[in-house]
Protein backbone atom coordinates (compact mmCIF):
# COMPACT_ATOMS: atom_id res chain seq x y z
CA UNK A 1 0.00 0.00 0.00
CA UNK A 2 1.15 3.49 -0.78
CA UNK A 3 1.53 5.35 2.51
CA UNK A 4 0.86 9.03 2.95
CA UNK A 5 3.13 10.81 5.42
CA UNK A 6 3.58 14.42 6.39
CA UNK A 7 6.88 16.06 5.47
CA UNK A 8 8.97 16.74 8.56
CA UNK A 9 8.39 20.19 10.01
CA UNK A 10 5.05 20.62 8.26
CA UNK A 11 2.72 19.29 10.94
CA UNK A 12 2.55 19.16 14.73
CA UNK A 13 0.44 16.11 15.56
CA UNK A 14 -0.10 17.31 19.12
CA UNK A 15 -1.40 20.72 18.04
CA UNK A 16 -3.54 19.28 15.24
CA UNK A 17 -4.32 15.62 15.92
CA UNK A 18 -7.26 15.61 13.51
CA UNK A 19 -4.91 16.43 10.64
CA UNK A 20 -2.43 13.76 11.72
CA UNK A 21 -5.28 11.23 11.82
CA UNK A 22 -5.45 11.40 8.04
CA UNK A 23 -1.88 10.12 7.67
CA UNK A 24 -0.49 6.61 7.61
CA UNK A 25 2.73 7.75 9.26
CA UNK A 26 3.44 10.87 11.27
CA UNK A 27 6.96 12.29 11.00
CA UNK A 28 8.10 14.72 13.71
CA UNK A 29 9.82 18.02 13.09
CA UNK A 30 13.58 17.51 13.15
CA UNK A 31 14.90 17.08 16.69
CA UNK A 32 18.49 18.08 17.49
CA UNK A 33 20.65 17.20 20.50
CA UNK A 34 20.16 20.60 22.14
CA UNK A 35 17.00 22.70 22.25
CA UNK A 36 16.77 25.37 19.53
CA UNK A 37 14.50 28.41 19.55
CA UNK A 38 14.91 28.71 15.81
CA UNK A 39 15.65 31.75 13.71
CA UNK A 40 14.40 35.24 14.35
CA UNK A 41 11.21 36.26 12.58
CA UNK A 42 10.30 36.81 9.76
CA UNK A 43 10.57 33.09 9.01
CA UNK A 44 8.20 32.58 6.08
CA UNK A 45 7.53 34.24 2.74
CA UNK A 46 5.52 33.40 -0.33
CA UNK A 47 6.23 33.81 -4.03
CA UNK A 48 4.18 32.68 -6.99
CA UNK A 49 6.17 29.45 -7.38
CA UNK A 50 6.60 28.39 -3.78
CA UNK A 51 7.25 29.46 -0.23
CA UNK A 52 10.41 30.06 1.75
CA UNK A 53 10.97 29.10 5.35
CA UNK A 54 13.80 29.71 7.73
CA UNK A 55 12.34 28.18 10.86
CA UNK A 56 15.84 27.16 11.87
CA UNK A 57 14.96 23.76 13.32
CA UNK A 58 13.10 25.11 16.33
CA UNK A 59 12.74 22.08 18.62
CA UNK A 60 12.87 21.17 22.30
CA UNK A 61 16.07 19.12 22.00
CA UNK A 62 16.23 15.33 22.17
CA UNK A 63 16.03 15.07 25.97
CA UNK A 64 12.85 17.08 26.40
CA UNK A 65 11.47 15.54 23.24
CA UNK A 66 11.84 12.05 24.65
CA UNK A 67 10.59 13.04 28.10
CA UNK A 68 7.70 15.34 27.26
CA UNK A 69 6.54 14.73 23.70
CA UNK A 70 7.28 11.10 22.91
CA UNK A 71 4.89 9.61 25.51
CA UNK A 72 1.95 11.58 24.17
CA UNK A 73 2.91 10.86 20.56
CA UNK A 74 3.22 7.16 21.41
CA UNK A 75 -0.31 7.22 22.69
CA UNK A 76 -1.85 9.09 19.77
CA UNK A 77 0.11 8.06 16.70
CA UNK A 78 -0.20 4.56 15.25
CA UNK A 79 2.98 4.86 13.18
CA UNK A 80 5.63 7.33 14.22
CA UNK A 81 8.88 8.38 12.58
CA UNK A 82 11.24 10.77 14.32
CA UNK A 83 13.33 13.14 12.22
CA UNK A 84 16.71 13.93 13.73
CA UNK A 85 19.30 16.50 12.79
CA UNK A 86 22.55 18.04 13.88
CA UNK A 87 25.81 19.50 12.80
CA UNK A 88 28.02 16.42 12.89
CA UNK A 89 27.72 12.66 12.66
CA UNK A 90 27.99 12.51 16.47
CA UNK A 91 24.94 14.75 16.83
CA UNK A 92 22.91 12.34 14.75
CA UNK A 93 24.25 9.34 16.64
CA UNK A 94 23.37 10.96 19.94
CA UNK A 95 19.76 11.50 18.89
CA UNK A 96 19.43 8.00 17.43
CA UNK A 97 20.85 6.43 20.56
CA UNK A 98 18.34 8.33 22.67
CA UNK A 99 15.47 7.01 20.54
CA UNK A 100 16.67 3.44 20.11
CA UNK A 101 14.90 2.09 23.20
CA UNK A 102 11.44 3.39 22.29
CA UNK A 103 9.25 0.82 20.61
CA UNK A 104 6.84 3.51 19.44
CA UNK A 105 9.47 4.91 17.06
CA UNK A 106 9.06 2.95 13.85
CA UNK A 107 11.83 4.65 11.91
CA UNK A 108 14.28 7.48 12.16
CA UNK A 109 14.65 10.03 9.38
CA UNK A 110 18.13 11.50 9.19
CA UNK A 111 17.83 15.10 8.06
CA UNK A 112 21.27 15.26 6.45
CA UNK A 113 19.97 18.07 4.27
CA UNK A 114 19.31 20.61 7.00
CA UNK A 115 20.23 23.97 5.46
CA UNK A 116 22.94 24.40 8.08
CA UNK A 117 24.71 21.16 7.29
CA UNK A 118 26.32 20.68 3.91
CA UNK A 119 25.99 17.13 2.76
CA UNK A 120 28.62 15.94 0.33
CA UNK A 121 28.72 12.22 -0.42
CA UNK A 122 31.03 11.17 2.37
CA UNK A 123 29.35 13.31 5.02
CA UNK A 124 25.88 11.91 4.38
CA UNK A 125 27.23 8.38 4.48
CA UNK A 126 29.28 9.12 7.61
CA UNK A 127 26.10 10.29 9.29
CA UNK A 128 24.19 7.21 8.24
CA UNK A 129 27.04 4.98 9.40
CA UNK A 130 27.24 6.71 12.79
CA UNK A 131 23.48 6.34 13.26
CA UNK A 132 23.58 2.73 12.09
CA UNK A 133 26.10 2.04 14.83
CA UNK A 134 23.75 3.02 17.65
CA UNK A 135 20.32 1.82 16.57
CA UNK A 136 18.77 -1.03 14.68
CA UNK A 137 15.74 1.04 13.70
CA UNK A 138 15.14 1.62 10.00
CA UNK A 139 17.01 4.75 8.92
CA UNK A 140 15.70 7.00 6.16
CA UNK A 141 18.25 9.45 4.77
CA UNK A 142 16.62 12.72 3.77
CA UNK A 143 18.63 14.32 0.99
CA UNK A 144 18.82 17.77 -0.49
CA UNK A 145 18.18 18.27 -4.20
CA UNK A 146 21.05 20.78 -4.27
CA UNK A 147 23.69 18.20 -5.01
CA UNK A 148 25.61 17.84 -8.25
CA UNK A 149 24.87 14.09 -8.22
CA UNK A 150 22.17 13.01 -5.80
CA UNK A 151 22.21 9.40 -6.99
CA UNK A 152 25.79 8.86 -5.83
CA UNK A 153 24.94 10.31 -2.41
CA UNK A 154 21.97 7.95 -2.25
CA UNK A 155 24.20 4.99 -3.10
CA UNK A 156 26.67 6.01 -0.41
CA UNK A 157 23.82 6.25 2.09
CA UNK A 158 22.60 2.80 1.08
CA UNK A 159 26.05 1.30 1.54
CA UNK A 160 26.32 2.97 4.94
CA UNK A 161 23.15 1.24 6.07
CA UNK A 162 20.20 3.45 5.18
CA UNK A 163 16.97 1.49 4.87
CA UNK A 164 15.24 4.14 2.76
CA UNK A 165 15.40 7.63 1.31
CA UNK A 166 13.26 10.72 1.86
CA UNK A 167 13.41 12.91 -1.24
CA UNK A 168 13.64 15.77 -1.12
CA UNK A 169 14.31 18.58 1.26
CA UNK A 170 14.02 22.22 0.18
CA UNK A 171 16.21 24.23 -2.21
CA UNK A 172 17.84 27.45 -1.08
CA UNK A 173 15.79 30.42 -2.26
CA UNK A 174 15.40 34.15 -1.80
CA UNK A 175 12.35 36.40 -1.99
CA UNK A 176 12.56 40.17 -1.76
CA UNK A 177 9.88 42.47 -0.44
CA UNK A 178 8.62 44.12 -3.64
CA UNK A 179 8.36 47.52 -1.97
CA UNK A 180 11.75 47.70 -0.27
CA UNK A 181 13.69 45.16 -2.36
CA UNK A 182 15.00 43.75 0.89
CA UNK A 183 14.93 40.05 1.75
CA UNK A 184 11.70 39.23 3.58
CA UNK A 185 13.23 36.59 5.82
CA UNK A 186 15.42 37.68 8.72
CA UNK A 187 17.97 35.13 7.52
CA UNK A 188 17.70 36.54 3.98
CA UNK A 189 17.63 33.16 2.20
CA UNK A 190 15.57 30.15 3.25
CA UNK A 191 14.28 26.79 2.11
CA UNK A 192 12.09 26.81 -1.00
CA UNK A 193 9.19 24.35 -0.94
CA UNK A 194 5.98 23.92 -2.87
CA UNK A 195 5.28 23.91 -6.64
CA UNK A 196 8.77 25.02 -7.75
CA UNK A 197 10.21 21.93 -6.14
CA UNK A 198 7.94 19.53 -7.99
CA UNK A 199 10.00 18.81 -11.14
CA UNK A 200 13.21 18.87 -9.09
CA UNK A 201 11.92 16.35 -6.54
CA UNK A 202 10.61 14.16 -9.35
CA UNK A 203 14.08 14.12 -10.95
CA UNK A 204 15.70 13.29 -7.61
CA UNK A 205 13.31 10.39 -6.97
CA UNK A 206 13.82 9.10 -10.50
CA UNK A 207 17.62 9.27 -10.29
CA UNK A 208 17.76 7.57 -6.88
CA UNK A 209 15.21 4.90 -7.82
CA UNK A 210 17.46 3.90 -10.69
CA UNK A 211 20.65 4.06 -8.64
CA UNK A 212 19.54 2.21 -5.49
CA UNK A 213 16.99 -0.37 -4.44
CA UNK A 214 15.94 1.63 -1.37
CA UNK A 215 12.29 2.47 -0.81
CA UNK A 216 11.73 6.19 -1.36
CA UNK A 217 9.36 8.61 0.34
CA UNK A 218 8.73 11.16 -2.38
CA UNK A 219 7.90 14.76 -1.53
CA UNK A 220 8.13 18.24 -3.00
CA UNK A 221 5.22 20.34 -4.14
CA UNK A 222 2.59 17.62 -3.96
CA UNK A 223 -0.81 19.34 -4.07
CA UNK A 224 -2.97 16.73 -5.79
CA UNK A 225 -3.28 13.00 -6.30
CA UNK A 226 -1.85 13.49 -9.79
CA UNK A 227 1.31 14.99 -8.30
CA UNK A 228 1.55 12.10 -5.85
CA UNK A 229 1.07 9.55 -8.63
CA UNK A 230 3.85 11.17 -10.67
CA UNK A 231 6.27 10.64 -7.75
CA UNK A 232 5.19 7.02 -7.53
CA UNK A 233 5.61 6.49 -11.26
CA UNK A 234 9.10 7.99 -10.92
CA UNK A 235 9.95 5.43 -8.27
CA UNK A 236 8.65 6.55 -4.86
CA UNK A 237 6.89 3.90 -2.78
CA UNK A 238 5.32 6.45 -0.43
CA UNK A 239 4.47 10.14 -0.57
CA UNK A 240 4.82 12.93 1.97
CA UNK A 241 2.85 16.17 2.14
CA UNK A 242 4.47 19.42 3.21
CA UNK A 243 3.49 22.90 2.13
CA UNK A 244 0.07 21.74 0.92
CA UNK A 245 -0.93 21.06 4.53
CA UNK A 246 -0.71 24.75 5.39
CA UNK A 247 -3.41 25.79 2.97
CA UNK A 248 -5.37 22.56 3.13
CA UNK A 249 -5.39 20.67 6.42
CA UNK A 250 -7.77 18.20 4.77
CA UNK A 251 -5.09 17.31 2.20
CA UNK A 252 -4.23 13.83 3.59
CA UNK A 253 -7.75 12.49 2.98
CA UNK A 254 -8.25 14.41 -0.24
CA UNK A 255 -4.96 13.38 -1.82
CA UNK A 256 -5.37 9.74 -0.80
CA UNK A 257 -8.69 9.63 -2.63
CA UNK A 258 -7.38 11.54 -5.64
CA UNK A 259 -4.33 9.28 -5.81
CA UNK A 260 -6.33 6.11 -6.07
CA UNK A 261 -8.65 7.72 -8.62
CA UNK A 262 -5.65 8.85 -10.64
CA UNK A 263 -4.34 5.28 -10.73
CA UNK A 264 -7.74 3.95 -11.74
CA UNK A 265 -8.07 6.51 -14.53
CA UNK A 266 -5.02 4.81 -15.96
CA UNK A 267 -6.47 1.35 -15.68
CA UNK A 268 -4.59 0.32 -12.55
CA UNK A 269 -6.50 -0.70 -9.44
CA UNK A 270 -4.36 1.29 -7.00
CA UNK A 271 -1.39 3.59 -6.70
CA UNK A 272 0.58 0.65 -5.33
CA UNK A 273 0.05 -1.04 -8.69
CA UNK A 274 1.56 1.94 -10.47
CA UNK A 275 4.56 1.63 -8.18
CA UNK A 276 4.94 -2.06 -8.99
CA UNK A 277 4.80 -1.20 -12.69
CA UNK A 278 7.43 1.46 -12.14
CA UNK A 279 9.66 -1.30 -10.78
CA UNK A 280 9.02 -3.24 -13.96
CA UNK A 281 6.79 -5.87 -12.32
CA UNK A 282 3.85 -7.38 -14.16
CA UNK A 283 0.48 -6.76 -12.61
CA UNK A 284 -1.85 -9.59 -11.70
CA UNK A 285 -5.42 -9.53 -12.94
CA UNK A 286 -6.65 -8.16 -9.60
CA UNK A 287 -4.28 -5.22 -9.78
CA UNK A 288 -5.74 -4.04 -13.06
CA UNK A 289 -8.64 -1.71 -12.44
CA UNK A 290 -12.00 -3.42 -12.74
CA UNK A 291 -13.40 -0.20 -14.16
CA UNK A 292 -10.81 0.36 -16.85
CA UNK A 293 -9.97 4.06 -16.96
CA UNK A 294 -10.13 6.40 -19.89
CA UNK A 295 -6.57 5.46 -20.79
CA UNK A 296 -6.70 1.75 -20.13
CA UNK A 297 -4.94 1.40 -23.47
CA UNK A 298 -1.83 2.89 -21.94
CA UNK A 299 -1.08 -0.02 -19.68
CA UNK A 300 1.81 -1.43 -21.71
CA UNK A 301 3.49 1.97 -21.80
CA UNK A 302 3.22 2.41 -18.06
CA UNK A 303 5.52 -0.52 -17.50
CA UNK A 304 8.29 1.38 -19.20
CA UNK A 305 8.16 4.22 -16.71
CA UNK A 306 11.20 3.35 -14.67
CA UNK A 307 13.25 2.39 -17.69
CA UNK A 308 13.20 5.73 -19.49
CA UNK A 309 16.22 6.22 -21.74
Amino acid at each position, binding site marked *: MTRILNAS*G*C*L*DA*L*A*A*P*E*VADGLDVFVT*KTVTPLPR*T*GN*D*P*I*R*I*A*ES*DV*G*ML*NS*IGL*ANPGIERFVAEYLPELAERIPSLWVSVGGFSAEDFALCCAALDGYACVDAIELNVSCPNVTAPADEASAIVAAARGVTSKPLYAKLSPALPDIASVAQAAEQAGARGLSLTNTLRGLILDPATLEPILATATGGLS*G*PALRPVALAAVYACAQATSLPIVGMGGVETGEHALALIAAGASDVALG*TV*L*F*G*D*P*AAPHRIRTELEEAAQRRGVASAAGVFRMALGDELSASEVSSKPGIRGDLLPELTKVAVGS
Partner: protein
Amino acid sequence: MHRHDDRRRPTRLRGMNAQLAHLRVRGNEAIGPYSLLHVERGQLDPGVPGQFFMLRTEPLLLPRPMSLCMARAGELGFLIDPTGKGTEALARLDPGDRITVFGPLGHGFPLDATDPVIVGGGIGIAPLPYLSESLRGAPALLGFRSDAHAVAGALLPNAEIVIDPVRVTEPLAEHLVSRPEATPLACGPEPMLAAVGRLASHAWLAHEAPMACGYGACFGCAVRIDGELKRLCVEGPTVLAGRLYVPDHDSSPLPSAVGVPA
Protein backbone atom coordinates in the same frame (compact mmCIF):
# COMPACT_ATOMS: atom_id res chain seq x y z
CA MET B 1 -2.02 37.69 38.51
CA HIS B 2 -3.45 38.11 35.04
CA ARG B 3 -0.57 36.31 33.53
CA HIS B 4 -1.90 32.83 33.88
CA ASP B 5 -5.44 33.58 32.78
CA ASP B 6 -4.25 32.82 29.30
CA ARG B 7 -3.42 29.25 30.13
CA ARG B 8 -6.85 28.41 31.49
CA ARG B 9 -8.66 28.86 28.21
CA PRO B 10 -9.30 25.66 26.27
CA THR B 11 -6.75 24.87 23.57
CA ARG B 12 -9.08 25.21 20.65
CA LEU B 13 -6.58 23.74 18.27
CA ARG B 14 -6.55 20.51 20.18
CA GLY B 15 -10.31 20.57 20.46
CA MET B 16 -10.52 21.45 16.77
CA ASN B 17 -13.79 23.25 16.47
CA ALA B 18 -11.89 24.63 13.49
CA GLN B 19 -13.15 23.31 10.18
CA LEU B 20 -12.21 23.65 6.56
CA ALA B 21 -14.89 24.78 4.15
CA HIS B 22 -15.06 25.74 0.49
CA LEU B 23 -17.51 28.60 0.44
CA ARG B 24 -18.93 31.32 -1.77
CA VAL B 25 -18.46 35.04 -1.45
CA ARG B 26 -21.75 36.85 -0.84
CA GLY B 27 -20.56 40.40 -1.23
CA ASN B 28 -17.64 42.77 -0.96
CA GLU B 29 -18.33 46.28 0.37
CA ALA B 30 -15.88 49.17 0.30
CA ILE B 31 -15.52 50.69 3.78
CA GLY B 32 -13.17 53.62 3.28
CA PRO B 33 -9.94 52.07 1.94
CA TYR B 34 -10.90 48.65 3.31
CA SER B 35 -13.07 45.84 1.93
CA LEU B 36 -15.73 44.16 4.02
CA LEU B 37 -15.91 40.66 2.58
CA HIS B 38 -19.12 38.76 3.23
CA VAL B 39 -18.73 34.98 3.00
CA GLU B 40 -21.47 32.40 3.45
CA ARG B 41 -20.98 30.70 6.82
CA GLY B 42 -21.61 27.09 5.83
CA GLN B 43 -21.23 24.85 8.89
CA LEU B 44 -18.44 26.96 10.37
CA ASP B 45 -18.45 28.06 13.98
CA PRO B 46 -17.83 31.82 14.14
CA GLY B 47 -15.73 31.38 17.28
CA VAL B 48 -14.87 34.00 19.87
CA PRO B 49 -14.01 37.61 18.94
CA GLY B 50 -10.25 37.83 18.34
CA GLN B 51 -10.08 34.37 16.85
CA PHE B 52 -9.18 34.22 13.19
CA PHE B 53 -9.75 32.25 10.01
CA MET B 54 -7.29 31.30 7.28
CA LEU B 55 -8.66 32.54 3.93
CA ARG B 56 -7.40 31.26 0.62
CA THR B 57 -8.30 32.12 -2.94
CA GLU B 58 -6.66 31.92 -6.38
CA PRO B 59 -3.77 32.42 -7.08
CA LEU B 60 -2.45 32.17 -3.52
CA LEU B 61 -0.27 29.27 -2.44
CA LEU B 62 -0.77 30.06 1.26
CA PRO B 63 -3.91 31.22 3.03
CA ARG B 64 -4.00 34.56 4.89
CA PRO B 65 -5.08 35.02 8.51
CA MET B 66 -8.09 37.30 9.01
CA SER B 67 -9.94 38.11 12.21
CA LEU B 68 -13.67 37.63 12.17
CA CYS B 69 -15.15 41.11 11.96
CA MET B 70 -18.86 40.36 11.95
CA ALA B 71 -20.95 37.28 12.60
CA ARG B 72 -24.31 38.02 11.00
CA ALA B 73 -26.65 35.07 10.67
CA GLY B 74 -25.42 32.61 8.01
CA GLU B 75 -22.44 34.80 7.23
CA LEU B 76 -18.84 35.51 8.16
CA GLY B 77 -17.61 39.08 7.65
CA PHE B 78 -13.94 39.98 7.22
CA LEU B 79 -12.52 43.50 7.01
CA ILE B 80 -9.52 43.54 4.72
CA ASP B 81 -6.82 46.14 4.16
CA PRO B 82 -5.47 45.50 0.65
CA THR B 83 -1.74 46.03 1.20
CA GLY B 84 -0.14 43.05 -0.55
CA LYS B 85 -0.70 40.24 -2.99
CA GLY B 86 -2.94 38.18 -0.73
CA THR B 87 -5.06 40.92 0.77
CA GLU B 88 -5.49 42.44 -2.68
CA ALA B 89 -6.70 39.11 -4.08
CA LEU B 90 -9.19 38.83 -1.22
CA ALA B 91 -10.34 42.43 -1.58
CA ARG B 92 -10.99 41.82 -5.31
CA LEU B 93 -13.36 38.89 -4.80
CA ASP B 94 -16.83 39.19 -6.31
CA PRO B 95 -20.11 37.69 -5.16
CA GLY B 96 -20.25 34.04 -6.17
CA ASP B 97 -16.45 33.60 -6.19
CA ARG B 98 -15.04 30.63 -4.34
CA ILE B 99 -12.99 30.95 -1.19
CA THR B 100 -11.50 28.39 1.16
CA VAL B 101 -11.95 29.17 4.84
CA PHE B 102 -10.40 27.36 7.80
CA GLY B 103 -11.23 28.26 11.37
CA PRO B 104 -11.97 29.55 13.89
CA LEU B 105 -8.36 29.41 15.09
CA GLY B 106 -6.30 30.62 18.03
CA HIS B 107 -7.44 32.26 21.24
CA GLY B 108 -9.89 35.14 21.21
CA PHE B 109 -10.25 37.99 23.70
CA PRO B 110 -11.41 37.08 27.22
CA LEU B 111 -15.07 38.08 27.28
CA ASP B 112 -15.07 38.10 31.08
CA ALA B 113 -12.35 40.75 31.43
CA THR B 114 -12.91 43.31 34.16
CA ASP B 115 -14.41 46.60 32.88
CA PRO B 116 -13.30 46.13 29.28
CA VAL B 117 -12.35 49.03 27.03
CA ILE B 118 -11.94 48.32 23.32
CA VAL B 119 -8.96 49.96 21.62
CA GLY B 120 -8.24 49.88 17.91
CA GLY B 121 -5.90 51.43 15.39
CA GLY B 122 -6.25 51.35 11.59
CA ILE B 123 -7.09 47.92 10.20
CA GLY B 124 -6.78 46.74 13.80
CA ILE B 125 -10.45 47.62 13.97
CA ALA B 126 -11.14 44.33 12.13
CA PRO B 127 -12.01 42.08 15.11
CA LEU B 128 -13.62 44.86 17.13
CA PRO B 129 -17.18 45.07 15.74
CA TYR B 130 -17.71 41.41 16.69
CA LEU B 131 -16.01 42.03 20.03
CA SER B 132 -18.11 45.11 20.72
CA GLU B 133 -21.28 43.19 19.92
CA SER B 134 -20.26 40.37 22.26
CA LEU B 135 -19.47 42.88 25.02
CA ARG B 136 -22.79 44.70 24.44
CA GLY B 137 -21.21 47.97 23.40
CA ALA B 138 -18.33 48.35 25.87
CA PRO B 139 -16.60 51.74 25.51
CA ALA B 140 -14.37 51.87 22.43
CA LEU B 141 -11.50 54.13 21.37
CA LEU B 142 -10.30 54.12 17.78
CA GLY B 143 -7.37 55.84 16.09
CA PHE B 144 -7.00 56.34 12.34
CA ARG B 145 -4.36 57.71 10.02
CA SER B 146 -6.77 59.90 8.05
CA ASP B 147 -10.41 60.86 7.66
CA ALA B 148 -10.59 58.39 4.78
CA HIS B 149 -9.54 55.51 7.02
CA ALA B 150 -11.79 56.72 9.83
CA VAL B 151 -14.82 55.85 7.69
CA ALA B 152 -14.38 52.33 9.08
CA GLY B 153 -15.06 53.74 12.55
CA ALA B 154 -18.76 53.58 11.68
CA LEU B 155 -18.52 49.79 12.21
CA LEU B 156 -18.38 50.58 15.97
CA PRO B 157 -21.21 53.09 16.38
CA ASN B 158 -20.42 54.05 19.99
CA ALA B 159 -16.66 54.53 19.48
CA GLU B 160 -14.69 57.67 20.22
CA ILE B 161 -12.51 58.36 17.19
CA VAL B 162 -9.20 60.21 16.99
CA ILE B 163 -7.22 61.01 13.86
CA ASP B 164 -3.45 61.40 13.44
CA PRO B 165 -1.54 63.25 14.92
CA VAL B 166 -3.68 62.45 17.95
CA ARG B 167 -2.88 58.92 19.14
CA VAL B 168 -5.50 56.57 20.47
CA THR B 169 -3.35 56.06 23.57
CA GLU B 170 -4.17 59.65 24.64
CA PRO B 171 -7.90 59.01 25.29
CA LEU B 172 -6.95 55.57 26.61
CA ALA B 173 -4.59 57.10 29.20
CA GLU B 174 -7.42 59.41 30.30
CA HIS B 175 -9.81 56.48 30.48
CA LEU B 176 -7.39 54.52 32.66
CA VAL B 177 -6.94 57.49 34.97
CA SER B 178 -10.66 57.54 35.67
CA ARG B 179 -11.05 53.73 35.65
CA PRO B 180 -7.76 52.16 36.74
CA GLU B 181 -9.26 48.64 36.83
CA ALA B 182 -10.32 48.81 33.18
CA THR B 183 -8.90 46.10 30.88
CA PRO B 184 -7.89 47.35 27.43
CA LEU B 185 -8.68 44.83 24.67
CA ALA B 186 -6.63 46.14 21.79
CA CYS B 187 -5.81 45.45 18.16
CA GLY B 188 -3.70 47.63 15.92
CA PRO B 189 -0.21 48.27 14.58
CA GLU B 190 2.75 47.11 16.62
CA PRO B 191 3.79 50.55 17.97
CA MET B 192 0.24 51.14 19.19
CA LEU B 193 0.09 47.74 20.90
CA ALA B 194 3.43 48.41 22.57
CA ALA B 195 2.16 51.77 23.82
CA VAL B 196 -1.03 50.14 25.14
CA GLY B 197 1.13 47.54 26.85
CA ARG B 198 3.16 50.27 28.53
CA LEU B 199 -0.04 51.84 29.84
CA ALA B 200 -1.51 48.53 31.05
CA SER B 201 0.45 45.28 31.32
CA HIS B 202 -2.88 43.53 31.98
CA ALA B 203 -4.23 44.62 28.60
CA TRP B 204 -5.01 41.93 25.99
CA LEU B 205 -3.36 42.59 22.66
CA ALA B 206 -4.36 40.95 19.37
CA HIS B 207 -1.00 40.50 17.73
CA GLU B 208 0.09 39.79 14.16
CA ALA B 209 2.79 37.72 12.54
CA PRO B 210 3.20 36.18 9.12
CA MET B 211 1.39 32.84 9.19
CA ALA B 212 1.58 29.99 6.73
CA CYS B 213 -0.84 27.58 8.43
CA GLY B 214 -2.60 29.20 11.40
CA TYR B 215 -2.86 25.88 13.27
CA GLY B 216 0.54 25.22 14.76
CA ALA B 217 2.00 23.23 11.87
CA CYS B 218 4.69 25.47 10.36
CA PHE B 219 6.36 27.35 13.25
CA GLY B 220 6.42 30.37 10.95
CA CYS B 221 4.51 32.73 13.22
CA ALA B 222 7.11 32.88 15.98
CA VAL B 223 6.78 35.87 18.30
CA ARG B 224 8.66 36.52 21.53
CA ILE B 225 6.19 35.61 24.28
CA ASP B 226 7.36 35.23 27.88
CA GLY B 227 10.79 36.03 26.46
CA GLU B 228 10.80 32.98 24.17
CA LEU B 229 9.93 32.54 20.50
CA LYS B 230 6.51 30.88 20.48
CA ARG B 231 3.87 30.21 17.87
CA LEU B 232 1.46 33.14 17.85
CA CYS B 233 -1.29 31.03 16.26
CA VAL B 234 -1.13 28.62 19.20
CA GLU B 235 -0.45 31.07 22.05
CA GLY B 236 -2.46 33.93 20.60
CA PRO B 237 -3.22 35.89 18.55
CA THR B 238 -4.56 37.66 21.67
CA VAL B 239 -1.85 37.74 24.29
CA LEU B 240 -1.60 39.41 27.65
CA ALA B 241 0.54 42.54 27.24
CA GLY B 242 2.84 41.49 30.09
CA ARG B 243 3.77 38.31 28.21
CA LEU B 244 4.78 40.21 25.08
CA TYR B 245 6.53 43.13 26.68
CA VAL B 246 8.48 41.60 29.52
CA PRO B 247 8.76 44.16 32.35
CA ASP B 248 12.61 44.30 32.38
CA HIS B 249 12.52 45.38 28.76
CA ASP B 250 9.74 47.87 29.26
CA SER B 251 11.88 50.96 28.96
CA SER B 252 14.27 49.59 26.33
CA PRO B 253 13.49 49.89 22.61
CA LEU B 254 10.90 47.42 21.38
CA PRO B 255 12.39 44.02 20.64
CA SER B 256 12.57 43.92 16.87
CA ALA B 257 11.58 40.27 16.82
CA VAL B 258 8.08 41.15 17.95
CA GLY B 259 5.45 41.90 15.38
CA VAL B 260 5.69 42.47 11.68
CA PRO B 261 7.35 45.65 10.49
CA ALA B 262 4.63 47.63 8.78
